[in-house]
Structure formats: C-alpha cells, structure tokens
C-alpha cells in the first residue's frame, strides 16, 4: 500500500479528479439506472442543441461527428483535445448497439431509433410553429435540457 495515499482517500481522490473532467462520480457509483450525461457533455454540446441521448446513434456515427466538430452541420463546435477524448469515449460507450446502419450525414434525427420513437408524430404536428425542427427537442421534451427524454416528460404544444 502506498504510504502517502491510504486506501479510502485515494478513492476520494480518483472521484474528485473525475469531477474535474466533468464526469459525474455519482453516475459511476449509481450502477443499473441510466446515467445522466457528463457535465462536460451538457456544457459543450447542449449550448446549441439538446443533449441528445448517446443511444440514438451508433458508435461509428459518434466517432465521425466527434472527429469533425470544427465543421459540425455548418458551425464550428470544436472542443479542446482532452474534452474530445472524454466525450468521444462516453458517447461510444453509450451508443446504440442495435442500430446497424449510420443515418444520412450521421444526423440523429434521420436515424432508425429516432424515427421509431417518433413514429406516432404526424407531419402536421412537426410543422407547428413552436416545433418546426426535429432537432428542437425542448419544444416537447420538457426536461431535455438536463438530458432527460422520458415519455412522462413529453408535452406536445397545440400549435
């Protein structure tokens, strides 16, 4: 045993250092239930769009998206190298395991998982002024800003 770092404090130190990189130590400790996205994911990705669930794209799509963030659907969404490594790993670890093909342009909203989950939504609903875009998650998913997309939290606006 390392004399300077007795066992219990070393565990704390590891958890604390994970916190520095935006990984929520509680998410790791909380086995079983679906983990909340890392704080870095919310900070870096959810500034411009909802923190999309990682499971809505296959790992290959996430790898491609994360390697071209400086040209991300028409905008520069680049992150520093350490953040890119952390987020890429988390996205791949939590990616869809049943999607066998990548959607066009790796667009999550064109993927089979997204289309399946939204199959009951008619074109008329999508075109409502308060919704308009398939990427406008917050229009209906009231807790999407925190990465929560449960069906219980869905409120579809009337117009």
């Amino acid at each position, binding site marked *: 045993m390392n*004399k*300077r*770092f*007795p066992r219990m*404090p*070393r565990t*704390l*130190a590891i958890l*604390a*250092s994970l*916190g*520095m990189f935006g990984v929520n130590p509680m998410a790791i400790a909380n086995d079983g239930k679906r983990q909340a996205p890392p704080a870095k994911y919310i900070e870096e990705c959810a500034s*411009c*769009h*909802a923190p999309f669930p990682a499971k809505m794209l296959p790992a290959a799509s996430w790898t491609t998206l994360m390697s071209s963030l*400086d040209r991300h*659907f*028409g*905008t*520069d*969404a*680049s992150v*520093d190298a350490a953040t890119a490594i952390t987020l890429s790993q988390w996205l791949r670890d939590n990616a869809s395991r049943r999607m066998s093909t990548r959607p066009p342009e790796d667009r999550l909203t064109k993927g089979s998982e997204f289309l399946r989950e939204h199959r009951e939504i008619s074109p008329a609903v999508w075109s409502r002024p308060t919704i*308009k*875009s398939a*990427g*406008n998650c*917050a*229009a209906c998913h009231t807790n999407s800003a925190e990465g929560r997309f449960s069906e219980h939290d869905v409120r579809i606006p009337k117009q």
Partner: protein
Amino acid sequence: MNRMTPLITTLSASLFFPLLAAAATPQEQLATYVQNAGGRADASAGQAFFNAKHGRDWSCATCHSATPTVSGKHATTSKAITPLAPSADAARFNDVAKTEKWFRRNCNDVVGRECSAAEKANVLAWLISLKP
C-alpha cells in the same frame, strides 16, 4: 505534518486552482483585449460589428439578437440562448477560457476567421455598456 497533508494539498489544488486561474470579470477581460489591441476599445464599432454580416449567412445578432440584453435563439436548432450582455446574465464573460472558446467558434461561423483583439475589445466594450 501528518501523512494526509500531501493528499489534501493535491486535492485542494486540483479542485480550486482551475477556477481561480480562469475566473475574471468582464471588465478584466476587456482590459486584456484592450491592452492586446493597442490601447482602446470603441463600443459603437463593436455594435456595428455585432450587427453586420461579414460575407456569410449570419451575424452575431442572428442568434444573440440585435440588443442582447434579451434572450436569443439559435438560428438552426431554435434553442434559447440566454442574454449575452453581462448586466442581463451574470454568468456571461466570467471565465477567460469560455470567452475565448466562444469567440473562436462563433467568429469562425460569422466572419470565417478568428476575431482580432481589437474586434473582441470593441464588441465586449459595447456588451458591457448595455443595461437591461
């Protein structure tokens, strides 16, 4: 010194030093840009720069609104963007790394290159001058 001291020192440094290193007020960040720009900032030039298109589809105002004491909206995703003026949102311009990251990303989108220290000084001087 007991044997916990190195651990406590390491933890304290790793938890708090990054915050101390990056924290700065909007005025302190403006002072740095002004210094790097050669001495002065022009708020009205900043307003013009903010509201102009620079040969591309978007201006800063496209997403942040022309008077960013109010919320803006992302041009493609429609996601709400909190007001950019520090007087309207205390979380704005309080972290040097964050400020630099967003200038880098957004200047690339709007201007097609990184912004100069003078351009950043002008825009920030104008934003600081705005009152809700």
